[in-house]
């Protein structure tokens, strides 16, 4: 019983830590030890596995929102600058 409680406590600690570091993991901002820590937990936690996979897909969608340059904008800015006292 105590062993099971300790194991659950460890699991939840890793769960919270992993959840808080998924962006750093995706952005490759973790050192090798912490990267392995995320990978170990994601390997056994279906929730974190799903959040990681859907977070990656979310970021793909966000990157695709970048719009094409709007070439007319600079002209308006320059005109305004020239009119300013």
């Amino acid at each position: 019983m105590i062993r099971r409680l300790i194991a659950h406590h460890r699991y939840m600690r890793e769960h919270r830590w992993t959840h808080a570091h998924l962006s750093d993991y995706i952005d490759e901002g973790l050192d090798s030890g912490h990267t392995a820590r995320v990978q170990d937990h994601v390997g056994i936690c279906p929730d974190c596995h799903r959040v990681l996979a859907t977070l990656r897909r979310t970021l793909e969608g966000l990157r695709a929102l970048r719009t094409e340059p709007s070439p007319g904008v600079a002209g308006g800015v320059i005109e305004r600058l020239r009119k300013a006292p």
Partner: protein
Amino acid sequence: MRRAGPEQEAALVERAQEGDRAAFEELARRHADRLYAVVLRFVADPEQAQEVTQEAFLRAWRGIGRFQARSRFFTWLYRIGINEAKRHAARRPPVEVVSLDDEPIPEAPDWSEAPETRADQAELRGVLERAIRGLPIEYRAPIVLRDVEGLSTREAAEVMDLGEAAFKSRLHRARLAVRRTLDEYFLEVGP
């Protein structure tokens, strides 16, 4: 954003600081379109975004003497643009706010492998646009700068005048909130 070499840009900034309007106009040509794209995420419509972008450049021109070369010109300019956009946004009634609750919805499907038709992509784009717009500005800015506009973490943190750790924490919360919005969407329509 057209990224000129840092030396070339530094020379233009230096000339602008000496009062050379043509040098500042060249800086405007290089950065106006991307600043406009950022501002557009904070204001109601393209017309207002034009106005805010112009106002930001005017403020930058008037304050160019205070610019210090320890930061990049465009990060300084973006900060002015976002502050100007915030002032405009504060005058408007708030839009529907996205919850910053970052807990995954337990029964939500795994939509990471969901196939996308062109129509799905357009709808998903709309869901993402609304989710970003629903974030409080302090959380919207990191996601716009880092994930949509593609600035590095260091550059985006500099624009927001935050340390990298604080910036990353906000970015992560914002990303999770947007991801959760998609959980809600796929829970409704199915993956």
